[in-house]
């Protein structure tokens, strides 16, 4: 066994690409439920959901990352993520498995602050043939879209 450090990532899909979040930042994965619109909020904030008695804001990850909008369907999931005291739901196209990725297999992303997706990515992980864009949970919570 190589003595590399492995970390677990919750992976999900947006369009054709795979994305991942460190498992420490993920509380649960939920099916979409009715949201309440928040007036005058940025367009990427869809609204509030009732998550077992707690009120959680939900972000449309596609809009946040500057991608085309997509209707919520049967595969759509809400990933409940936590960063410090903030708890936010992220709507994704579909959720996939939890993957172990070697630290060695994670490349630094190119830097480009003008590109919403690249700006939110902290690394690009390789697992076999697959590329997984690892999201920076802190950046995801920035309000400017």
């Amino acid at each position, binding site marked *: 066994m190589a003595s590399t450090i492995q970390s677990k990532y919750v992976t999900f899909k947006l369009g054709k690409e795979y994305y991942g979040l460190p498992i420490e930042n993920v509380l649960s994965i939920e099916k979409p439920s009715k*949201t309440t619109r928040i007036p005058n909020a940025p367009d990427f904030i869809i609204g509030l959901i009732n998550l077992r008695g707690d009120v959680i804001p939900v972000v449309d990850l596609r809009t946040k990352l500057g991608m085309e909008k997509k209707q919520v369907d049967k595969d759509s999931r809400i990933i409940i993520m936590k960063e410090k005291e903030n708890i936010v739901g992220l709507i994704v196209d579909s959720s996939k498995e939890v993957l172990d990725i070697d630290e060695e297999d994670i490349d630094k992303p190119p830097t480009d602050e003008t590109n919403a997706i690249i700006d939110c990515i902290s690394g690009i992980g390789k697992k076999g043939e697959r590329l997984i864009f690892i999201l920076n949970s802190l950046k995801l919570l920035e309000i400017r879209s």
Partner: protein
Amino acid sequence: MSQYLNLFIEESNEHLQNMNDILLELEKDTENISLVNELFRVAHTLKGMSGTMGFTNMADLTHEMESVLDGVRNNRIHLNENIIDVLFECFDTLDEMVSYIVENGKEFEDNNKELIEKLREIAGGGKTSKTTNSHTKTQSNYLDSYVLNVIEEAQNRGLNAYNISITLSPDCMLKSARAFVIVNTLDAIGDIVYSNPSTEDIEDEQFDLEFSLILITSAEKDTLLEKLNNISEVEHVEIELVESDKKKGEKEDDKNKNESIAVKEDMQVDKKTDEKDKLSKVNKVTKTVRVDIDRLDNLMNLASELIIIKNRMEDLSGTSNKEDMVQAIESLERITTNLHNAVMKVRMVPIERVFNRFPRMVRDLSKELNKKVKLNMYGENTEVDRTVIDEIGDPLIHLIRNSLDHGIEYPQERIKLGKSEEGNLTLKAYPDGNNVVIEISDDGSGIDFEKVKKKSIEKGLITEQEAENITENELVNVLFEPGFSTSDEITEISGRGVGLDVVKNKIESINGTIELESQRHRGTKFTIRIPLTLAIIQVLLVMLRDEIYAIPLSSIIEIITVKKDNIRSIHEQEIMLYRGKTIPIVRLDKLMGLGSEELLDEYVAVVVRKGEKLAVLLVDNLIGQQEIVIKPLGKYLSFIKHFSGATILGNGDVSLILDVNSLV
């Protein structure tokens, strides 16, 4: 050890609070020996506690305090302002030490050398001046008369005083520890008024095998004997009843001496009962239950869930007509209300917790400013929610500082104005319906509205034209604008550009309101209104298209219908006449980004208020009144305007709670 840390912190804080109160009392009455005794006891307890926890710096400091206080109660040291200041400094240091322990779980590495030096100087100075001070009797004499005095009073109350001589067994390993056990045992049964050698010496093992104590107790000799004999390593116990000095004196022939003592004693007894009264006031420790706030929150959540279920059942009852169902709901409603009240009460704490730091603060500030200020506090027992307690402290401190710095004048100035030399600062708290009102008033210079006007024009907050017609009430609002401060000079105490706007924001963040009244040369009064609890409120649910919003009942005045013809508009702002006043109209649908529907002939409207100001909110429909649980929107959504939180309705949907303060 860590399991005791919480206990240590809780208790230290209680003792420190006590110390603070006593010091403040003592400052007013430096001759009050029972206060000194009390202070000594507190210092001693703190020393013991910190020693046990291994906080040696704290133990050292309290030990030195003890030495000074011991000197004072033995009349070796005369208590003066300087010593009180040093004692206050000790208190501050101890307070800081405990705060550091709270945050870091360990003691700060600072042995307070300077402070300890000061204390040693005082304690040492007392010793040298002992012989030169002709007024004081020799130590033992005074002590005797004092002790005898106490004994006599105890006997008057039907208590017994025993002289207990204890000899430890020669093979005793830890003499001081053993002695400590004995002292503790006796302390539990009565009061130890005298010990030979002194308690410090006993603790430092500065005794052979014997020591003696005088104990005042209601217990019988035999009980004492039994208790003491149960302690191991005690070789021999001798207990004899002490007769009071008076009785003894009568038996003695030396009448002259006796008389003089007796007269002196009578005086002292009178003074002492007086002191006792004062003391009992200071030391009235309320019985408290320490409850982990997490557990309380859990209980609160349970109550919240019950209320949600109740609301859901109410929804159900609309569809099925069963009478049983209705009854069940009624009783459930009763239970939830009761449970809610019970839980609320557990969460309630007297506002004293915030107020009790103010006497010290006012003392320090008035000294610093060379002003004379008397602080009056009323309604310290008024209870508010724990969360409110944490939030309200800073705004109050700010207002008090303002009052002292800008409000109350210097003594000479006050005399010139025909006021009393001493300024009055009054803090008052009382419950008012679902709110708690806190008033902070002073009899100082009041607000110079002309100056405010000038400043507002300078700062561009109002135009000169506006200034001509502006009323004092409107100017008051300008005072709460960010960056406004009329003080000409920036002082240490206030006026650093952070003004009343911060206070206002803080109070509004807990759904409170603040109002100001001021009269030139008469004084200023701030009235703060805060809700009793922040967790559950009554709301009116309203419809806007297919969305449901909640408006807190506390800010609703009434529900009216507004005819289209009655709506006027000035500069895009729609207004209407309501009870002889023009008030602005807010089209909620438009504000919520829903776009105005075609104009109707008649609207349903809710009249809301924020303080004195009113506004009319136009809505589509009313649903009804409901008790709801407030869920915070969280930090992530903190930039969202117009909402103070959200709630979960009976059907599980989330609904937003309108923040009326931001609409009016």
